[in-house]
């Protein structure tokens, strides 16, 4: 009873004092007379490291099998079953993280932030698909990436879209890539992970908003195959570049093309390049003039883009939590809250960092964004410039070939080709 009184008394004293003093041994641990033993604090272990290493092995195995199926066996069915496996293993079993798409941000963070040491498995997840792409084309996209394969399964009634639209939308992944790198490099945010529309399905749990976005993507994906892969995925943008120089890319025909045009509309991703014959070649003077113009316009575009990006840097930086905090403190806006002090400000006051330090830090982050804005803008300008170049180049082509950049190596077109490896033709009834 005495102890109880003492506690109440203490409580009154303490409650008059600082509210948030944490972890102070105010009341000593009792020694029990009844022989009561204190239970242990249970701390469940995380998923073991061995499983993470297993993931890398599964990734290598899956990449190898899919590459073999695509390049050697030319089997759409095999790729389809591998997609199912990828959705089940990399999607539902592993619940998503870390995936190759997101790993590019970890890589950037490791490059720019000296304090972050990157796990080896993450490096493997980033580099392995690129290496495989360098040899066999985007087989990773075809049947290993859980995000892509999930959409692939939903691609039930693909419809072709205008090729000019495809080109314009194809620039978006590069912009997204630039933004993701900028935000990861400034340790601001991992935007790719934050706005990953499909991870919620794998975890069967996400915010309502993300479920809606994911659902919309899948619904669109029924008609426009793999919208995320083609028009958003930043890792896909990287693989697109690498795949152009791949050693053994899938071909539509196993032998020589017989110009039957059967495969013409077989690709749900619009990634088959049609033959370009000599007669379509532009008149030489016009082409020359355009090239002179382009060679001037590319540096110009980089400059204009860089300038615009640098002007835009404040909008980019306002996402950063430190900048936001400094801004709210400076303007006394309290995060728009009227009833009580915003948690961010409470926490800042509790942490004991001086305002001077915070302002200096915010200023230096903004400076990073200023330079980042130049680089990002210049990069986007370059992408636009190169796209224009690729749209002005005349490439002589006799056969129907997959576009090595945008082709996802799904092997759908293979089934449309009537040519056999020995150059015989299947005669359809």
């Amino acid at each position, binding site marked *: 009873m005495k102890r109880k009184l003492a506690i109440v008394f203490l409580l009154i004293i303490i409650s008059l004092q600082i509210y948030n003093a944490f972890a102070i041994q105010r009341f000593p641990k009792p020694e029990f007379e009844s022989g009561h033993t204190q239970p242990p604090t249970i701390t469940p272990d995380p998923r073991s490291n061995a499983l993470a290493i297993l993931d890398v092995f599964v990734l290598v195995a899956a990449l190898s099998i899919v590459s073999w199926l695509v390049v050697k066996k030319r089997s759409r069915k095999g790729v389809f079953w591998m997609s199912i496996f990828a959705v089940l293993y990399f999607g539902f079993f592993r619940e998503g993280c870390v995936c190759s798409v997101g790993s590019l941000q970890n890589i950037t963070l490791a490059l720019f932030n000296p304090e972050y040491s990157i796990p080896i498995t993450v490096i493997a997840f980033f580099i392995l698909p690129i290496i495989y792409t360098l040899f066999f084309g985007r087989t990773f996209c075809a049947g290993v990436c859980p995000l892509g394969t999930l959409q692939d399964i939903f691609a039930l009634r693909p419809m072709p879209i205008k090729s000019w639209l495809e080109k314009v939308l194809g620039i978006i992944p590069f912009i997204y890539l630039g933004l993701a790198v900028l935000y990861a490099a400034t340790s601001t945010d991992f935007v790719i992970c934050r706005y990953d529309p499909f991870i919620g399905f794998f975890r069967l749990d996400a915010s309502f908003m993300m479920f809606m976005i994911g659902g919309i993507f899948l619904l669109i994906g029924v008609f426009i195959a793999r919208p995320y892969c083609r028009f958003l995925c930043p890792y896909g943008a990287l693989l697109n570049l690498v795949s152009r120089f791949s050693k053994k890319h899938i071909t539509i025909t196993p032998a020589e093309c017989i110009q039957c045009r059967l495969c013409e509309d077989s690709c749900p991703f619009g990634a088959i390049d049609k033959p370009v014959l000599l007669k379509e070649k532009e008149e030489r003077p016009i082409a020359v003039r355009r090239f002179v113009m382009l060679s001037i316009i590319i540096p110009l575009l980089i400059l204009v883009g860089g300038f615009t990006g640098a002007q835009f840097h404040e909008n980019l930086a306002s996402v950063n939590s430190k900048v936001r905090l400094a801004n709210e403190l400076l303007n006394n806006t309290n995060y728009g809250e009227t009833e009580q002090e915003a948690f961010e400000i409470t926490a800042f006051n509790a942490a004991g960092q001086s305002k001077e330090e915070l302002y200096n830090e915010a200023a230096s982050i903004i400076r990073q964004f200023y330079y980042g804005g130049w680089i990002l803008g210049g990069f986007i300008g370059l992408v636009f410039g190169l796209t224009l170049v690729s*749209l002005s180049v005349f490439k002589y082509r006799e056969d129907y070939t997959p576009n090595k950049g945008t082709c996802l190596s799904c092997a759908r077109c293979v089934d449309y080709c009537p040519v056999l490896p020995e150059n015989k033709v299947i005669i359809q009834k």
Partner: protein
Amino acid sequence: MNNNKQIFKVNIQLWKGIAIVAAAFSFIICFLIIANYLQINRLDPVNTEIINTLVERLSQNPNDEALKEEIRELDLLARKAYFTNQWQIRTGGYLLLIGVIIFLIAIQLINSAKKISPEVGEKDDNNLFLQKTARKWVSFGGIGLIIIALFFAFLTHNRLGETFTEAAFAENALNKEATSDETGSIQTPVETSVNETGQTDIEESTEQTTKTIKSSIADYPTAEMKENFPSFRGPGGNGIAYQKNIPVNWDGATRENILWKATVPLHGYNSPVIWGNKLFLSGANGSQRQVYCYDRNTGKLLWTANADNITGSPANAPKVTNDTGHSAPTVTTDGKKVFAIFSTGDVIAFDMNGKRVWAKNLGVPQNHYGYSSSLYVFKDKLIIQYDHRTESKVMALSVESGDIVWSTNRNGKISWASPVIVKTFDRVEILLLTDPFLASYDANTGEELWKIDCLYGEIGPSVAYADGIVYVTNEYASLVAIKIGDNPEKLWETYDYLSDVPSPVATDKYLFLATSYGVVVCHDAKTGDVLWEKEFNNGFYSSPILVEGKIYLLDKQGIMHIFKADKEYISLGEPKLGEKAVSTPAFANGRVYIRADKNLYCIGK
């Protein structure tokens, strides 16, 4: 072949039906889940206002049984609804998943049963035309993007960076005003205490401090540093502490005047430093390197920060001897950050909350005992003596980023001494001792100001400075007094008692020197005459500190010898700690902090 087709044909009808049913089912479930989602926010039991208001009402009339019942019912209802809702959504999710999977299987089966029917139509696919359209739209897209970006950029004025810099500047000015006001009141007692010993130059410099801070030219050590104990051997490392009311009696055995005692997790020969209410020190072994922050009033370990994962840090720490260890250098702080260096050459900065600000490796020092020079901060620079076998230099790193601000090569040998940073007549100099010379460097630029050959051997003690004279010593060499200036000259030199570990401490009139074999000697500062000498039972590794006109000198067995800084030996106390100690104590007003072999002690009343 025909048979197969037959089977598929039958199946198509069936699967079509299944697909339609599954789709309808999925839609219904989906709809229900969305409805449930919208509901969940209303049912959040964490923020049920009704219950909270009812409980408030209850506290006004605590015996209202009906009200109690009402609360209990409501609470149960709210919790039930919350968990049922979660269950519903989870179950709904599974059902939806099953529905969608069945739908997909059905559609995929139907698709696979269909024959591939390529269409070969006549299409207008003039390549040139397509390219032209694409070019047009790409250009439009680019122009649109630029216009939108510039529009938003125009809205934001692009002044945020400068605004922050200005705000930081304003804050800084505000803080400075506050500290200079505070120091004005604190300094008076310091001055009187100093007067007892007759140290006129310190008195002058404190007066100057007050003046110069007002005119915002930094003195050294600054008033802020003098209020604290920011580095090894006090501010600037000259062996002087500016605190008051320091206790002279305590007893480790009876715990008399021992306020708290805490075990330091990892061993280290470095000494504690103090800023505000925080006390910092470091510890290391071959594999771990840590910095600790204690609440100096309660002894609570506030944080432990690891110095690991540093780029360039060697996998195995270099070999060191047992009496040097992996963390001999003392940490330092400027009140905003804490800096530490270890035997591996890892330098690391933490903020006051233990968050890493930057870290780097300076290259593993080639040192057969182990790196031992302590760190100091001058303005925004971290000063590091880095004399080792392959190269010998002194450098300044930016406290903000760790980038090298300046680095000056010295053609010396390995030195274990720490820098001493003092304000001489019109500039701030870094005094550094090595075999065979004493050199002075401009703290702002790192430029070598002057240099004089004076000593040899494996140099351990740092220098002492007072009134324009630097005192340097080393075992098996000599004790030399050097008048500083662009043409430094030796004033006197003796060979009687020499130190190999503890550093001397000087006032205007006297020089005090302790030796590792137990003799303490007092010289006349100007002539070098021995005024008194006294032999103690235990030797000294810890350096003497002058505070309040008294010398505090800790021997290897943990006995603190306190005596007047005067021309006669007058003992003021010899309190025992009861634990071996080699580190130099740190001081705060009314407190002494001692890092003994295993424990950290706070002594005070």
